[in-house]
Every structure is written in structure tokens, then in C-alpha cells.
């Protein structure tokens, strides 16, 4: 199964930028009574199979869920770039498929390795799925809801995998740093948000804002924090601008 996965992935990221540029804009404009269906001609001009978003919408307008065997998908991959694949094929590639992905979640039984779930493989699989979806956004469906929740992967699996000092940061220390930074940001911007609201949600948000940044990458912390600070104060300035010309003695 992972073979078919890797068949999918290599080409997925290449054309991500193309849909926007190759997009035939005029088509989409203010036509008052355009129905959702007859979109198909719009996409035939495209060369690659990966402009999932629109293509899927158009091609699958009639049947709810096209399930077409994989080999076809592989074929359309190989023709990547050259003469546009037929629409039938376009529709195939646009749905994520993996034998371990069953009813909206990863079938953990298939991830078993010597009696234990191989969480690393689950993380890998999910990363691939998300990557795929990023390039080929899928329609949401009420009949086939996504049930997978990253929190089912135990925390130690993440820690083990990213056996980094970050793991340590993760518990406690980051929280502390983040929390106090939040207060620091708060007092620096001079707005007294934390005090004013007396509300923990705000504190939490500030805390999240800072901690989130801390956790992304350690060495970029400073830069990111600076940027964040700038950004937050920017909004404040926009609000305070109207009070500017009120300096006493201003002839205005």
C-alpha cells in the first residue's frame, strides 16, 4: 500500500502553484444563473492532474463518490505534465486513498507490529494524507465523516519521535515561559488586556500565542517573538491612531 502512496506523493507537490496561475479566471465571474455543474470545460485546459479542487468539483458533480481502481491513478500520474489526462482520470486522482484508511480513520489493526501499534507509521501516514489534502482539497462529506483525531496517538509517540529538547520544553517549561511572556507582552503593549478582561480565556490565548511560537523551532524563537510582538502592537496602533492628534496644545 505504501507503494501506491509514494506513487501519489512525488508529483503532488510540484504543481501546487499552478492552479492559481493557470486558472482561467473569466469563466468564473458574475454570471447570475450559472449552475454548479457545467464547469467541466473549464478544467480541460489544464495539463496536470493535480488541480484537485475545481477538477473534482466539476468532474464528480453527478456521482457522489467515484471509486476507481488505482492503476488508473498511477497512469495519470505518469502522464503528468504533458497532454492533459482525460477527465475520468482527473477525478480518480483527486480522492485520497490508502488501504489502511478505513471509514474516515486509520485502521490501527493494520499498523500492528509485533503485537503493538506502530504509532510512528500512523504519524507518517497521517502526514502523507495531510500533504495530499493540502494539494488536493477534498469535499467534506456528511456520509463519510473524518473521525481520525491526532490525540489518539499517545503523547510518548510524539516525544519519542521528536526526541528533542523540545519535548522537555513541551511540558512545563514552555508553559511557564509562554505564560510569563504573555504577561510581558501584555504589559509592554501597555493595554492591560489581561487585567481588563480578568478572564482566563484571554490569558490562555496570549499564552498560546507565545507558546505556539516557542514550540515551532527553538532557534527562531527570538525572531518570531519579535515579529509577533510587532504584529500585536501594530493592531493596537491602528486602534489608538485616532487619539493621536489629541495632544494638549495641539492647535487642531
Amino acid at each position: 500500500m505504501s507503494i501506491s502512496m509514494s506513487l501519489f506523493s512525488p508529483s503532488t507537490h510540484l504543481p501546487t502553484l499552478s492552479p492559481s496561475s493557470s486558472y482561467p479566471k473569466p469563466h468564473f465571474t458574475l454570471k447570475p444563473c450559472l449552475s454548479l455543474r457545467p464547469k467541466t470545460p473549464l478544467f480541460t485546459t489544464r495539463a496536470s492532474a493535480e488541480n484537485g479542487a475545481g477538477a473534482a468539483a466539476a468532474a464528480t458533480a453527478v456521482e457522489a463518490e467515484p471509486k476507481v481502481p488505482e492503476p488508473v491513478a498511477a497512469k495519470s500520474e505518469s502522464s503528468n505534465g504533458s497532454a492533459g489526462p482525460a477527465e475520468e482520470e482527473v477525478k480518480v486522482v483527486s480522492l485520497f486513498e490508502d488501504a489502511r484508511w478505513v471509514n474516515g480513520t486509520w485502521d490501527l489493526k493494520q499498523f500492528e507490529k509485533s503485537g503493538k501499534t506502530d504509532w510512528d507509521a500512523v504519524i507518517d501516514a497521517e502526514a502523507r494524507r495531510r500533504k495530499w489534502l493540502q494539494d488536493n482539497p477534498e469535499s467534506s462529506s456528511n456520509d463519510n465523516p473524518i473521525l481520525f483525531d491526532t490525540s489518539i496517538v499517545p503523547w510518548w509517540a510524539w516525544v519519542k519521535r521528536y526526541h528533542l529538547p523540545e519535548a522537555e520544553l513541551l511540558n512545563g517549561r514552555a508553559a511557564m515561559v509562554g505564560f510569563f511572556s504573555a504577561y510581558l507582552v501584555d504589559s509592554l503593549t501597555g493595554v492591560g488586556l489581561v487585567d481588563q478582561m480578568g478572564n482566563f480565556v484571554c490569558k490562555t490565548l496570549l499564552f498560546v500565542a507565545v507558546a505556539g511560537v516557542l514550540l515551532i523551532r527553538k532557534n527562531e524563537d527570538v525572531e518570531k517573538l519579535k515579529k509577533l510582538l510587532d504584529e500585536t502592537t501594530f493592531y493596537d496602533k491602528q486602534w489608538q491612531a485616532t487619539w493621536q492628534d489629541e495632544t494638549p496644545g495641539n492647535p487642531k
Partner: protein
Amino acid sequence: MASIALKSFVGLRQSTLENPSFTSQSKPISSFPSSPRTFRVLAAKTSPKVAGRNLRVAVIGGGPAGGAAAETLAKGGVETFLIERKMDNCKPCGGAIPLCMVGEFDLPLDIIDRRVTKMKMISPSNVAVDIGQTLKPHEYIGMVRREVLDNYLRNRASENGASVINGLFLKMDSPSQGDGTSPYVLHYTEYDGKAGGVGVKKTLEVDAVIGADGANSRVAKSIDAGDYEYAIAFQERIKIPDDKMVYYENLAEMYVGDDVSPDFYGWVFPKCDHVAVGTGTVTHKGDIKKFQLATRNRAKDKILGGKILRVEAHPIPEHPRPRRLAGRVALVGDAAGYVTKCSGEGIYFAAKSGRMCAEAIVEGSENGKRMINEGDLRNYLEKWDKTYWPTYKVLDILQKVFYRSNPAREAFVEMCADEYVQKMTFDSYLYKRVVPGNPWEDLKLAVNTIGSLVRANALKQEMEKISA
């Protein structure tokens, strides 16, 4: 009264002046071209009575901001003129209003087309979370048609004595003398409906002006209010088959993801007999149609076979204008720039700011008996910023943290599955008040949020490895 207001105003200014970054900003702003106002009357008590008539105030624009302002003015004894260019204007808008607006503005229930009790938030990987699970039986988000709401508010202003004029405001002349009492002269084209489009040019003398004329405000232009950054919002009204409509009966959807918008969300909101599908962006305005198509694609199954009834687009302000008042002219609603980040909510804030500004005028003029001055209008600004600034700020932070990237959005949606988060979110949305949280729950929330963010980021790193 006046001295109190003045004092607290000074207090506000001092605290902001302590902020170094703030003072460094002051230069470009104060270099605004000086308006003809040469001095300001500082104390309201010295302001003269208006003789033989009541204070005259014009409200430009008959949206929620204008309608609410005009009603309050008229009720407060001010001679009020409400100028709206198009009486059946159907402002491009999602039309979602918080529950508290219904009570605070005494809205009749029949103007609410739908009561949304389920709000689905859908992540880039299509994890869908219903964030309305904690709603109590009487709680809902109201969906209105703007032509209905606006018309209703204008009528109520009219019933209370405001003169509603169907006219296009063109420009205004500031008072010729800086004595603080000379009138503003408004130029507008009046339509009487019958004349068949070609209106009659007219002028109107008033003592004060409320600019409620929306994002492309001409009033703002005429007082050099400066510009704001704006988002472009795109929306299609789609009539979907009846069997599909059942799903949207009392349910709204919000889609997040780089595909639907790099910095906002895409939505499907139920309207009277159709749905509104839309999205918005500040940073990639040129790609808006692509985002719209992506939004439609994500909702594809649920709107299949729909017919597009109408396509609309409109700017949404991102932050207030550099200047929100000058002399006896104040801006409210979108003209001032009062739309929240993150949720893009503006109807309630427009109506509230209109009312608050009108209240300041009624109070400052002692029910229309005295002339008002800039200080009176500043009371409105000060009160506004005090009351709502934290709300705007929180939503700004939220947007920055969670709409930034797909991993952040995944984490956001994961978080929203938490009942506690839902309760807090809805309480603050529906009632515009912040309830103190439960410290233990807050702590849990903080830990969970970090957990979600860490996992999403870890997956992102993994995704990057795949492409590398």
C-alpha cells in the same frame, strides 16, 4: 458631567502615551492636513443653546449603523435626517447576528429567517466539529436578510420622528467659521422614486454629522479620516435542492484551510430559501475567485445541483480608520472600521456604535437643546474603545494564531471539539460578554491547546520532509 468625561479621557490618553511605540507613531498622524477648525471648545457646559429649534443632525447611510443612530437621535429630541441612497439596498452580507442583538435592539422575531443552532467548523483535512453543542434551547444565531433588517431599523427611526431621505450624499462643506456653531452644509442628490433615476441636487444645513455610510464612506473622505486595510469578501447566493436544504435548516458551516482562504474562512450560511456561500481574504485579494471555487468544492456534496442566484463582493474593514471624528462629524460602523477579525462580524457592532454615538450627542446636547462639540463626540469614542477594544484584540490574536497555517487550523478545529471552548466561544459571541472561566478548565484547555498545536506542527514537519 463634562468635567468627568474630560478627566477620564485624559486618563486614557496618559496610559497610552506611556507606550513608547505609540509615541513614535504620533508624528505621521499629526501631520494630517489641518482642517479649518482652528480651535476646539473644550467644556460642554460653555456650549451655547441652540435658539428656536433643536439640534440638527444628519446621519449618512441607512445600514444598521445609520438606522440605529437615527432612531436614538430622534428619540432623544434631536432633529434627525437619515440619508440613504438606496432604500431597498441589499448589502452583501452573511447576515449572522448574535442573540443579544435581538434583545438589545428589540428586533421582532419575524425578521429572523433562520435560527442557527449548529455551527460546523471544518478543518483542512475535513475534520468537522459541531461547535453548537453547548447551546441552550433558547439560544441561537440569527440569520437575517439585510434588506429586511435595514429597512426595519430605518422605519423605526422614521416612526420616532427622523426624516428619512432617499438621497445620495455627495460631499459636505465644513463650517465657514470656526466658532463652533456654524452649520455643516451637505450636498446630496435626492431621489423621489418616481423621477426615474435622475435626482434633484439639494443641500441641507446641520449642526453635526454621523457618517454611517459603510466601507467606501464619503463622509470619512470629507474629514480626511484616512484609510484602513480591508479584506475582500465574496459571496454567492445559491438555491439548492430542497432535500439538500434540509441539512442547512438550522446549521451553518465554516471552512478553514489554505485552499479556501489564507487568512480568513469560507462559509455556508442558510438564508430564507437558499444558502450563502462565500469567503474572504486580505492578503491575496487577486485570488478570491479561486478561494470561492475551493469553498464551493469543499461543500460540494451538500450544495450539489444548486443554482447561483446572485454573486456579490464587498470590502470588509480590518481595523479602524486613523481618525474617527473631526469637529462635529463622527464615523460609526464600517465607515469607522468596526468589524472584528477572525469572525468578520460587523452588523452588531455597526448598530451598537451608531447608537452609542447618538447617545453621546443626545447627552452632550441635553436632548437637542445645546450645540455639541468634538469633546461630546469623543465621549462616544472613548466609551467605544473601552468597551469593545478587548474583544477586537482577542479576535485579532485568535486570527493571528489560528488562521496562520493549515497545522494551526487543524489544531484550532481540534480545540473546538472541546465543550468548554464551545461554551466560552458561544457565550462571548451570543452575549458579547466575557464570563470568567473556571481556572481548572482553563488550565486543561491551555494544556490541550498546546498539545494540539504541537501535534499539528509535528505533522507539518513530517509533511515538509515528504516534499523535500
